[in-house]
């Protein structure tokens, strides 16, 4: 198996797999968000500003997180807003994107004076977008795919005589499964008012912590990558939120 960086040509212009599946994933996520928003009767006056803020926040967060994950030598690119609009530079990290999107959406929600959270519509959309986006990561052999392995599904890395973990495919498989689980959970009484989104983020953070062990990201300290530290922090934050709000959540439930 060899990488497929160029998916197809439009005339003489190459269309790269990473950019294609990134855009396709975002569009699919947006499509699912629209479906969910309609289903939840979420008014467009709320969906549009929150989605725009989440999108911009996500892109900024994805880029900013690189400073932490990859090191301060990336500061000239990360801290330059105009580099955010440079198509030659990759978008950044999904973990940072998730945090940025959450913050952006949260600020927009507060700005429009929402007292209750309709943001659960984002949860399955995020999982679907990530699953599709990871196809591009796999086809472009981003990050050298993963660490060496002897497992039967290992992928040969061009220019080497060993197999590596197809880590983006693990991510894709998890997110597809997670998407289905979130769909099953979305109408549960406990999974309303922002809880589904928090569970969605917490679940991905939990998975990401472990999949990082077979990825090639930079180890920062204690044998952990920046992405692992961020994932652990996210997961703990979600757990603490649910523990701290356990009573409040129970009292908000409709009487049976």
């Amino acid at each position, binding site marked *: 198996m060899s990488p497929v*960086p160029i998916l197809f040509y439009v005339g003489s212009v190459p269309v790269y797999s990473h950019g294609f599946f990134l855009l396709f994933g975002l569009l699919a996520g947006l499509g699912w968000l629209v479906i969910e928003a309609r289903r939840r009767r979420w008014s467009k006056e709320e969906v549009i500003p929150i989605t725009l*803020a989440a999108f911009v926040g996500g892109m900024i967060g994805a880029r900013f997180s690189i400073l932490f994950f990859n090191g301060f030598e990336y500061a000239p690119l990360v801290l330059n807003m105009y580099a955010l609009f440079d198509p030659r530079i990759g978008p950044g990290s999904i973990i940072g994107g998730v945090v940025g999107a959450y913050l952006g959406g949260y600020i927009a929600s507060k*700005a*429009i004076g929402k007292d209750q959270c309709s943001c659960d519509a984002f949860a399955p959309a995020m999982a679907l977008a990530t699953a599709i986006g990871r196809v591009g990561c796999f086809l472009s052999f981003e990050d050298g795919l993963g660490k060496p392995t002897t497992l039967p599904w290992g992928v040969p890395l061009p220019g080497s005589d060993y197999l590596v973990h197809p880590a983006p495919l693990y991510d894709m498989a998890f997110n597809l499964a997670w998407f289905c689980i979130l769909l099953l959970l979305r109408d549960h009484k406990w999974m309303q008012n922002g809880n589904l989104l928090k569970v969605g983020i917490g679940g991905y953070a939990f998975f990401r912590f472990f999949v990082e062990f077979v990825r090639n990201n930079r180890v920062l300290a204690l044998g952990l990558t920046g992405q692992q530290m961020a994932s652990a922090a996210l997961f703990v934050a979600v757990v603490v939120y649910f523990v701290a709000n356990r009573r409040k959540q129970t009292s908000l439930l409709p009487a049976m």
Partner: protein
Amino acid sequence: MAQPSEVENKPAEEAISKPKRQLTRNEKIRDFLFGFVGWWVINALVWFAVMSDYVNSMGENVLLIFLLGIPVFYLAQLITLIILASRRGWIALGIVSAMALNLVITLILGLTFNATCFIPFFVPAS
């Protein structure tokens, strides 16, 4: 008689224009355009200033000041956006829309570049 959807949407519309009184439709459009066009104009001016031959020919010290100013300007824009979001929601929406449009253009142009996420194309596995 008001349509059901209008009744549902009204609180959100009132909230997005958070200031004390309800903005008229024209005022909302004016604020939105002010944010949208203003963002493009200000950033185009700054971008051209930084990229211009004139600034580049003024020596390393001036260039350094400009380059150091970019992160500060970036941060200032984000803080301004957050403040505007709570005070002049429609201006903030215009700014966010301008940024989102730019990002969409970037993503579309990104189809033709092999830009992976800040990581060299092949990292030799250890």
